């Protein structure tokens, strides 16, 4: 079938003067299990196939269908649409790549029966039981995606990748107060990623935290010295630096980082990296959705803005070396410049030394999501919990802590970067489309605005 489609595409491209096209045909198998309290809330197991075609003439045209009988129509439509757009003059083409990559882990997910997945999720929900814990959630999700990527240069890349994620969450109620905590596990690979989770330990941890948060206080408000734990460092660097370093925002003149390559923007010790080649992480991939190999990018090197994340279009336009960061949510989406696994590299501080540095400040822990305006550099993100730090010691426990700041100011205010890097916080990043990512880093000391009561 693919040979035939490729021939149709070549003929149509010739006829319509389309210089470049690419075809992605995917087979997507997903399984999800959601258990709330002891009730099964969702159980699904599906397979779908679809095609997405992108064509470049003087701009991009894209079309997709989840019904392969429409493949020919999709090819023609994408090429006609390309003729209607007026975008960039050129894109990076490069040499054709022929490769086949399988990343299914040690124990293939489709070799494990759904009843076992149901059982593990059920056990996780059960283990979350505890005093005052009124709501327990365990959610399991997996995807196995087989993609054939073809382009007009002659690239033919076959990939098969599986990703898996387990999330556990507890909500405790007592006397009108509530406390909520959760934790996610997972990565790119197979069932072994689930088997390695110490479920008892983590379920106990999550429910205990939910209970402890019942007694936690609302945070103070104002500008404080803030120590971020590795998980919060991850969301900070993803939101504050990663999005602004996406070359599409730079190209459009929207990013605060536009035109600032080579400029010193943070402490000498600050190194920020995005690396899709890390083995087994949730945001890892061998090839992006434009058929280019994913490469490690040093966004900030020794405090200097060093490199943007780019794709075929922005690398050509901004004269950058392509680094394979064009990612799409699925065959039905156009690739956009996206992050993969983003983190701050290890600094020289022991975590204890960082705490000793703080006379009065906040220790903020965990990722509750964030958002950034890349034009102004204003960002906000939430932490799952926090502590007041006095003379290096943890004092009052805090809940519902949100931080806000300006990217440039906060990067300049970084005073200490720990040695203790952790990158295992699998999640999804939204930019009109959702893609799996990971992020992290060490403990970091900076200054930010805290929104309290």
């Amino acid at each position, binding site marked *: 079938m693919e040979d035939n489609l490729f021939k149709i595409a070549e003929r149509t491209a010739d006829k319509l003067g389309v210089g470049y096209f690419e075809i992605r045909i995917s087979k997507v198998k997903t399984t999800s299990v959601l258990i709330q309290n002891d009730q099964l809330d969702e159980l699904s197991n599906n397979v779908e196939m679809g095609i997405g075609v992108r064509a470049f003439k003087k701009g991009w045209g894209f079309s997709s269908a989840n019904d392969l009988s429409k493949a020919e129509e999709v090819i023609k439509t994408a090429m006609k649409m390309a003729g209607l757009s007026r975008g960039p003059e050129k894109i990076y083409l490069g040499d054709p790549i022929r490769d086949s990559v399988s990343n299914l882990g040690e124990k293939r997910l489709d070799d494990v029966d759904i009843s076992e997945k149901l059982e593990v999720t059920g056990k996780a929900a059960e283990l979350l039981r505890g005093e005052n814990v009124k709501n327990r959630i365990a959610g399991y999700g997996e995807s196995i995606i087989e993609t054939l990527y073809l382009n007009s240069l002659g690239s033919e890349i076959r990939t098969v990748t599986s990703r898996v994620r387990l999330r556990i969450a507890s909500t405790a109620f007592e006397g009108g107060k509530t406390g909520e905590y959760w934790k996610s596990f997972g990565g790119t690979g197979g069932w072994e990623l689930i088997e390695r989770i110490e479920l008892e330990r983590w379920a106990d941890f999550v429910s205990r935290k939910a209970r402890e948060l019942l007694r936690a206080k609302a945070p103070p408000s104002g500008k404080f010295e803030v120590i971020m734990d590795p998980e919060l460092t991850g969301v900070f660097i993803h939101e504050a630096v990663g999005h602004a370093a996406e070359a599409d925002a730079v190209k459009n003149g929207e990013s605060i980082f536009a035109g600032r390559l080579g400029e010193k923007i943070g402490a000498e010790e600050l190194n920020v990296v995005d690396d899709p080649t890390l083995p087994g992480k949730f945001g890892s991939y061998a090839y992006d959705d434009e058929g280019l190999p994913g490469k490690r990018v040093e966004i900030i090197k020794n405090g200097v803005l060093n490199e943007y994340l780019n794709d075929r279009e922005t690398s050509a336009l901004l004269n950058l070396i392509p680094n394979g960061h064009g990612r799409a949510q699925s065959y*039905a989406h156009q690739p956009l410049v996206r992050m993969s696994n983003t983190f701050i590299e290890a600094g020289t501080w022991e975590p204890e030394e960082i705490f000793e540095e703080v006379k009065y400040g906040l220790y903020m822990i965990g990722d509750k999501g964030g958002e950034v305006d890349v034009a*102004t550099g204003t960002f*906000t993100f939430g932490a799952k919990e926090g502590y007041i730090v006095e003379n290096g010691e943890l004092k009052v426990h805090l809940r519902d802590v949100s931080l806000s700041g300006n990217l440039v100011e906060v990067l300049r205010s970084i005073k200490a970067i720990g040695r203790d890097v952790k990158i295992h916080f699998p999640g999804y990043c939204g930019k009109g489309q959702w893609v799996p990512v990971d992020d992290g880093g060490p403990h970091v000391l900076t200054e930010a605005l805290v929104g309290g009561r």
Partner: protein
Amino acid sequence: MEAVERLAGILDKRNVEWEIYWEEGKSASFRIERERIERAQWKFYSGIGLRVGLNGRVGFSYVTGLDHDEKSLFELVKRAEKLARIGSRPFRGFPTREKFPRVRGLYDKSIDDLDFDEAHSLAGEFVERMREMRGERGEYTLAGAMSFGTVRAGIVNSNGIEGEEPRTGLAIWAYAVKKNSRSGSGYASQSYTTLEGVHEGEELIRRAMNEAESSQRAEKIEGFSGEVLLEPQVVEALVYLFLENLYGDSVYYSRSRFSVGDLGKSVLSGNVSIIDDPTLGFSPGSYSFDGEGVPGRRKVLISRGELRSFLLDHTYGKLLGLDSTGNALRDFRSIPRIGTGNVLVGRGSENLGDWSGVVVSKVFGEHTANPVTGDFSLTVELGYVVENGEATPFSGNMVSGNVFEALGSVSRVGKELERRGSFYSPRIVTEVRLV
């Protein structure tokens, strides 16, 4: 629909309860960057979602496409049945047939009939407006998008429900960045069910540019606690945070502050009423039947501060001893989930044009807030301090508080409703803390 009839035929011969939900749709969108259409796309999608009820349990599976032979449909049935057998998702049967309301303006043939060139030319006119409005002002960069969509959705179940409805949509957004020594940004968007919306493109560009201009001048202001005027975008953030407590599944699984016993109690300020109404004409949140074939109906959720109704689908309605409110939302890939149609905050009697003090216009970071405790701290993207009739923009502060307290201490409500997609709200005055 041939595949649906064939599937119903297979299911009728088996000893199961069943529900088929199908969709067939297409969407076109044009993405604009730097006042040029850089990317155009046209997508087709269709599929069939099947729920099967078996011995008090339910299973769900779907197939993409509408063209299937007997064998592929039979496999779909087997998959759904297998999931029903191994799972134990609560199941209280499927709804029974009721009359659907007639909802005006869900479908506009002129959107459905658009071909590439016509759709492109409408987007082209929008881009042309951008170029004109930007003119020689090189400090502005404009971006945006225009999208058109049509979907035909249908439902059939073993209790005799049968419904089919075409719906159309148009969405437009504009984003402006203003640069000089510092940057400001502005964003405006709207969605419609008919093609008439294209005439508002210019107004959206103007709003985005005005906002970028204000945002560029905005500085952080001194924090305080007290009354502020919240514009509809901020009210929307707070109301949706609050509404998470009214979702039937949250109530059932104790993830809500409320239980069934709280119906009839006063939970918010007497100045606050909130209504969910999927039957409004020409509104993007409207439908005549929901994802389970229950008629869309208007319901008062909060009446003058009093909790009147939750948002329910058939299953959680039954589990709580209540009836579905017709709020099951879905596509063919998903089981029905509880959601809202059009949400309206009741208007008051004040014009609030004479407001002197702090106005918060736009916030972000809603998803970091906690709907159960209600505590929020949101970043102010844009606000104004109004003194002697003069408005000075500010931004970068955080607005924090508790949603139950903030909606519990609303002292004044404006008389004009603003529509933001499927959310309608006046401006309101309440107490929060600005950090």
